[in-house]
C-alpha cells in the first residue's frame, strides 16, 4: 500500500529523518513510536507528501509519488492530526464535506456518507452544525476522523490522534478507534509517543530515535528482545509509571 524507500529529510542542520524504509500492507496497522523530536511526525508528513524527501522515494500502491499525482493520491489517504486540525471557521459538517463538495458529489451522496460516518464514530447528529470550538475534545477528534474517512480512503494516517485528550476519554476512544480500524480493514499508519497506545493498535511497531528506526517488530519483540538500552529504557520508563 505505502512504501517509503530509504527516505531522508533535513531541516537546516537537523537531520529529522535519515534513511528510513517502511512498508505498509493492506489491512495492516503500523505505529511509529519514539520520544519527541525523533522524526516520527516528519515521517508521516513525508508519507502524505506535505513535505518532500531530500533523498529516497515514496510509493503509494506501487506508484511513485510525484508533484503531479500528489493531489490525487492525497484524496485516497485520510489524515488526522492532534487536536483534529479542524478549520475553526467551518462547522463540523462543513469540515467533513469540504472535499466532497469540491469534487461535486451530489448532496444525497454526501448526506448518506455522513450518516454512515456518524453511525461509525458514534457522533451525535445534532452536533454536526456546531463549530469546532463548541465541541468537546473527543467530539473534535471524531469529526476529524469523519473528515478523513469521507472519501473512503484506502489508507489512514494519524499523527497523535488522541494526544490532546484526557485519559478517560482517551481510553474510550482508543477502543472505538481500534474497532473502527478493524471494521474498515484499512491500512493504518499511526504516530504516538505512548508505547501502550502503540502496543494496543499495532501489528508492527517502528521505534524511532534521532531520525532513525532503532527497532521494528511487534510489541512482544520489543519487550522481550530490545536491541539496545535506549529501547529498553523507552519501554520501561513508561511501564514503570503505572
Amino acid at each position, binding site marked *: 500500500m505505502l512504501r517509503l524507500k530509504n527516505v531522508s529529510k533535513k531541516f537546516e542542520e537537523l537531520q529529522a529523518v535519515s534513511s528510513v524504509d517502511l512498508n505498509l500492507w493492506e489491512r495492516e496497522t503500523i505505529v511509529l513510536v519514539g520520544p519527541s523530536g525523533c522524526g516520527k511526525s516528519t515521517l508521516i508528513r513525508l508519507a502524505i507528501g506535505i513535505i518532500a524527501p531530500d533523498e529516497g522515494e515514496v510509493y503509494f500502491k506501487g506508484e511513485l509519488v510525484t508533484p503531479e499525482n500528489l493531489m490525487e493520491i492525497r484524496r485516497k489517504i485520510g489524515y488526522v492530526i492532534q487536536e483534529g*486540525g479542524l478549520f475553526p471557521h467551518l462547522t463540523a459538517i462543513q469540515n467533513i464535506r469540504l*472535499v466532497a463538495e469540491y469534487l461535486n458529489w451530489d448532496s444525497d451522496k454526501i448526506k448518506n456518507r455522513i450518516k454512515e460516518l456518524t453511525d461509525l464514530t458514534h457522533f451525535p447528529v445534532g452536533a454536526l452544525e456546531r463549530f*469546532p470550538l463548541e465541541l468537546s475534545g473527543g467530539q473534535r477528534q471524531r469529526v476529524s476522523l469523519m473528515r478523513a474517512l469521507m472519501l473512503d480512503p484506502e489508507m489512514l494516517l494519524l499523527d497523535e490522534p488522541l494526544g490532546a485528550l484526557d485519559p478517560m476519554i482517551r481510553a474510550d476512544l482508543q477502543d472505538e478507534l481500534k474497532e473502527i480500524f478493524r471494521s474498515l480493514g484499512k491500512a493504518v499508519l499511526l504516530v504516538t509517543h505512548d508505547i501502550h497506545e502503540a502496543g494496543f493498535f499495532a501489528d508492527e511497531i517502528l521505534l524511532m530515535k534521532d531520525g532513525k528506526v532503532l527497532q521494528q517488530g511487534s510489541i512482544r519483540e520489543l519487550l522481550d528482545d530490545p536491541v539496545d538500552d535506549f529501547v529498553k529504557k523507552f519501554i520501561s520508563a513508561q511501564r514503570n509509571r503505572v
Partner: protein
Amino acid sequence: MISKTKRLLLGIVIAANFCLPQESMAGDSKDEVNVGSKKFTESVILGEMAYYLLINNGINVIHKAELGGTQILFKSLVQGELDIYPEYTGTILQEILAGESIKNEDELKDKLASMGILMSEPLGFNNSYVIGMKKEIAEKLNINKVSDLRNYPELKFGFSNEFMDREDGWPSLQRKYNLPQRDVRGIDHDIGYRGLENGSIDVIDLYATDAEIDYYNLKSLEDDLNHFPEYQAVFLYRSDLVTRNPELVKSLLRLEGIISESAMIKLNAEVKLAGKSEGEVASRFLERELNVETEFYQVTIIDKLIQNTYEHLFLVVISLSAAIIIAIPLGIVTYKIPRFGQLLLGLIGVIQTIPSLALIVFMIPLLGIGAKPAIAALFLYSLLPIVRNTYSGLKDIPLQLSESAEALGLPSKVRMMKIELPLASRSILSGIKTAAVINVGTATLGAIIGAGGYGQPILTGIRLDDTGLILQGAIPAALLAFGVQGLFELLEPIFVSKGLRLGENS
C-alpha cells in the same frame, strides 16, 4: 462567503462608476472654463469676481477655490487644469520666474507668452508691503511718507518675523530710508494690530489691502523712495482662451483697472471682518462697478454639508475600494512569495512615510488637480494596512491547519479561497478598518488641491480664523471616521465566520 465579499466589492465599484462620469465628463467638456484661486481671502474674492462675471456671460465656469500655493496654481495653469487665476506681479517675478533676469514688463509678458500664458493689465491695486501706523498719531505728527519717520527716532517699530528677514524687509528699508529708530521688534502679525491699539507699538508692516487697515483706522505711509517691489494684482490666463472664446477674455478683462486699493480693503473687510461670503461680496462689487446683474445665491450650511459629504465620500469610497481590490491580492502574493513580498512591503512602507500633504502634492504633475490626485494619494495610503494585515493574517494561520488543508488534497487556489482567506478574514477586515479611518482623515487634505470634501470648510475656517467653520469640516469628518469604523464592525459577522468569533471569548 468569498462570493459575498466579491459581490459587495463589485457593488462598490459600480456605485463608484456611477459617480465618476459627472466628474470626468466635466473635465473633458470643451467649453468649460476653470478659474482657480489661492487659499487667502483676497485671491478667493478675485476668483469669485471672474466666476460671476463669466457665468453672467453664459459661460460654463467652475471656480476651484482655495488651492494650496503659487506653484500648484501656476503649474495647473500651464498644464491646462486651470484657465484663469489671479496673481501678483511681484510674485510672478520673485517666485514663479525667480532666476530669470527679467528687466521690464515686456520681457515678463514675452516670457509668460512663451509658456502659453497671458497677463491682464493690473486690476487697479498694488498689494505690496506697506508701513502703517495709527491715523491719529500720523496726523498729529504729520507723517505721510516713510521718509517722514526719520524725524521721530523715539517711535517703536514692531514688524512681522518674515519682514524682519526678507531681502526687501526691515534691514534694507532702514538702509534706504536711513531710519534712526532703535526700538524694533519681531512680533506676530496679529499681535501687531493689538500692539498698535494699546500703544505698545507705533509702526508695523502691512499688506496694502489688509482688511484691518480700515478696521483699526490705520494709515499706510507712502513708499516715497520706491523701496518695495510692486505687487500689482493681475489675472493670468491661458493664451488659448483667446481663440477658444474671445468673448470670454473680453469680459474678463473688464476687471482691469477697476479695483482700487481702498475698494479691495473694503471687500476684504466685508469677508474677513463682517463675515460675508466671497461670492456675495464679489457679485455686489460687479453690480456696483460694471452694472453686471449676477445671480448670486447664498448657499446654506446644509447644502454645503451635503456637497462636502458627497465629495468626501467620493474620495474615500473610490480610493478605499481600489485599495481593497489591489491590496488583498498583494497580501496574498506577499505570503506566497516572501522574498518579493518583503520588497513590496518595504516599498509600500516607504510610501507611508511620505507626509500625506507632500504625497498629495506629488500627484499633481501626474494627475493634475482635483479629485484624481487626491484619490491616487489616498489609494496609496490605504494599501499598507490592508496588504500587511492580509499577509500577517495568512502567515499566522497555525501550521496544523495549513497542513490539514494540504493533506485533504485541495488545490492551492481552493485552499486559499475556502480555508486560508476565511481564516485570515478578521485580520484583513481590521486592516481595511484601519485603512478606512486613515483614509477619512487624510481625505480632508484633498481640499488643498481642489478635491473638495470636509477639508474645504476647514481650509476656509483657517483662512478666516473662523472656528465655527473649521468645526463644520472637522466634526463631520470625525463622525464619518466613527461611522466607517462602526460600519466595519457591523460587517464583521458577515465576513468573519461565527466559528472564529467564538474564539475571542474562550
